[in-house]
């Protein structure tokens, strides 16, 4: 409950005034039934609250990862060391959070709380973006699943170690690893929607990346090219086109048509922004002063300031 009431002289009023009265006054033949139902509902509400809390933190951490990744300037096998380490430390935190909610969202509860698990979309966005920056390709749902599972498992393990440390005084066996309490810890599974909507958001991040990296380096981000390929290395413009086409060709998910249309529209805009970038670079690339950043209207996040 939020706060407490004060009496005239400013002293906190005790809560045992009129408040608990209804609890004792009415007991009738249906009260036990309602008490039973109340306990069940409370269990559900508490669980949802725990999930929502963790989900909020995971979302924030994922967003931070994305911001870090936006400081990458070109696509290459290895992320710059400082960004990689930032990402790793945030992923470690995410791991722990995932491990805490994993047991709560098994079986029937996976979809029960899927609306409280928007964080997974955000996490997918971060992971797909990182994957794109390293490999210039879109990671598939089936490839992503084991990564998330691994994250959850790591979080569970590190927690076990903490608990093992705490109970060291109780005399654990010296055989090294304490036997895990459950044969295999529950993991977090991605739904199709988590993946799809995460990838939708990826297009926005790619657009931002394309804009800043082009502005700052003067070249369109793309593959290294050179060896063996007889044609120009693929650039982000083509990648955006491919992604755009993917979404245009997919049948509209009938579950949430409205959200789908909205996301698709945003994706179209992102694709066109990157198209425009490609065009600009060809037409007046040489005239453009170094460091010039085109108008990012909806997507401005101030990366332009980081001209180091």
């Amino acid at each position, binding site marked *: 409950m939020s706060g407490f009431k004060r009496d005239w002289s400013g002293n906190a009023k005790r809560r045992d005034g009129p408040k608990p009265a*209804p*609890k004792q006054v*009415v007991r*009738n*033949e*249906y*009260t036990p*039934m*309602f*008490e039973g*139902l*109340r306990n*069940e*509902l*409370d269990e559900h*509400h508490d669980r949802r609250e725990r999930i929502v809390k963790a989900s909020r933190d995971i979302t924030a951490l994922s967003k931070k990862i994305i911001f870090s990744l936006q400081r990458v300037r070109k696509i290459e096998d290895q992320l710059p060391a400082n960004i990689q380490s930032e990402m790793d430390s945030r992923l470690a935190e995410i791991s722990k959070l995932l491990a805490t909610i994993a047991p709560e969202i098994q*079986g*029937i*509860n*996976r*979809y*029960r709380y*899927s609306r409280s698990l928007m964080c997974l979309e955000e996490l997918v966005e971060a992971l797909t973006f990182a994957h794109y920056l390293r*490999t*210039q*390709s*879109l990671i*598939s*749902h*089936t490839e992503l699943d084991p990564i998330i599972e691994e994250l959850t498992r790591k979080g569970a393990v590190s927690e076990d170690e903490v608990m093992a440390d705490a109970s060291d005084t109780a005399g654990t066996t010296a055989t090294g690893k304490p036997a895990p309490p459950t044969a295999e810890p529950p993991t977090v599974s991605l739904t*199709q929607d988590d993946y*799809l909507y995460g990838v939708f958001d990826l297009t926005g991040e790619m657009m931002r990346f394309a804009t800043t990296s082009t502005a700052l380096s003067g070249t369109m981000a793309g*593959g*290294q090219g050179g060896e*063996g*390929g007889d044609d120009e*290395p*693929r650039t982000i413009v*083509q*990648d955006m086109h*491919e*992604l755009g086409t*993917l979404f245009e*060709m*997919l*049948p*509209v*998910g*009938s*579950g949430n048509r409205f959200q789908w249309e909205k996301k698709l529209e945003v994706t179209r805009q992102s694709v066109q922004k990157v198209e425009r970038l490609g065009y600009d670079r060809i037409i007046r690339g040489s005239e453009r002063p170094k460091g010039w950043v085109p108008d990012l209207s909806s997507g401005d996040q101030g990366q332009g300031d980081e001209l180091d």
Partner: protein
Amino acid sequence: MAPPMIDPTLFDELKTKIEEDTSVRKDLDQILDDLNQQVSFTQGVLSRIHSTPRSKYATLLGQIEGGIRKEIETVGKLSAFASQYPYYKYNHKWTRMVQDAVSTVIICAWLGGMSTDSKPGEIGRLLTLEDIGQAFNVPVNLKDRDAFHITIEEYLLGLITVIDDLSRLAVNSVTLGDTSMAVKISGFIKDLHAGFQVLNLKNDILRKRVDSIKYAVKKVEDVVYDLSLRNLIPAQEPQ
């Protein structure tokens, strides 16, 4: 060469899954269409209760039970079909209808219908969530496995519909000269109102509907007040 941006199989996988989802929804819609019709019909028959004197309940209840039997049959189909998929993925599609179906059964039983061998029908009998599960022959409040069931929320929301309907019946029973019915309803609704106060509610649909119970209580209290003012309350049922 670098790998392609999008693996060619990726599109097909996504497309197949979306199409599967769409076809499941279509099949569900067909079952739910049936259920919707049956529930509407049963509710229609039920509304005759407001113009039927208590002496003629028996025939009316028979008709209501006929409608309910059809509902039960369709819920069985729904259960068999929906249990193949994650329950909460599609639950939102039928939850309203199941609530309404549950409410028809609760009210029918309260009026004296739905009698079973162990529990004879009598006016004022409240079916619990478990009773509802037995009536529909489906599990209730499932937690350990992912299959069709009737949830606590669905039961409670259905019960609130019953409260609204009974508050209307209180008025109409007085019109039909059955004052003891109004008094009985008043006691029942007050007890349920007290019961709902026991719940810890969040700011959701259940909370909103529970908040509306007090209007039903007031409506019935007004009726009882009118009766007591005129000394019309039967003596054998002190309230």
